[in-house]
């Protein structure tokens, strides 16, 4: 299953709903392009909803890190929402769980940007 992205605006925050696999190749490119597109439109508060991301490899993790630093370097914030157990475990293994701001409630996550 390839990755899909859709974006919606909630109280000034762009919620990026991701689904499928973030892996080397198409999945990573889709994520990269989506973040670049949001930034180019001035959307710098980004909440990446990973509830339907069932698989991520080291390239996908690298792409998440790249998105995080790209948004941060442009004065914005990228936070993660609703990690699946596998993605949660992988972020723990890679010590990135404490680097990312990880949320498990969308409403609270939206408020945390303001």
């Amino acid at each position, binding site marked *: 299953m390839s990755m899909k992205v859709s974006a919606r605006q909630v109280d000034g925050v762009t919620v990026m709903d991701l689904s499928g696999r973030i*892996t*080397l*190749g198409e999945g990573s490119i889709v994520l990269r392009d989506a973040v670049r597109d949001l930034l180019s439109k001035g959307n710098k508060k980004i909440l990446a909803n990973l509830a339907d991301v069932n*698989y991520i*490899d*080291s*390239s996908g*993790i*690298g*792409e998440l*890190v*790249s998105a*995080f*630093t790209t948004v941060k370097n442009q004065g914005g914030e990228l936070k993660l929402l609703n990690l699946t157990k*596998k993605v949660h475990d*992988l972020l723990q*293994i*890679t*010590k*990135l769980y404490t*680097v990312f701001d990880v949320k498990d409630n969308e409403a609270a996550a939206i408020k945390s940007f303001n």
Partner: protein
Amino acid sequence: MTAKQVSYTFESTLETINSAEEQASRIAAAAGFNEDDTMSIAMAVREAAVNAVLHGNAYDPAKKVTVAFEQGDKDLTIVVRDQGKGLDVESVPDPLAPENLLKQSGRGLLLMRSLMDEVQINASATGTEVKLIKHIHGNAGDPQEAVQ
């Protein structure tokens, strides 16, 4: 019970990575590993295949990647080989070091070691061999059914 073996040879392409992962998932599930372990095995094989295709063979169409599976009574062993210049493991930066945490790449070996019970790397001037071992616990299936 004797061990059962199967081996696949792949081109150095992105499709190889998906194929290796799919074979690993199929064989691990048939061997009786639970869903979580099956996913871990498939992910580790994927990471080894990524290294073989990208860093080992560097997409060279003249070089192949082989993925060999062997199921014994106690373990499932997967060996991923490339025909590159040989990985210098000592030169791979520690992805958990604070200065490397935000690097985009370099986590493949870490994930393999976390997902599998044993990881052995043998590198030479003619290629790198990554051996991934997962111990079989409990109700593992008949190897004849898993690896064929």
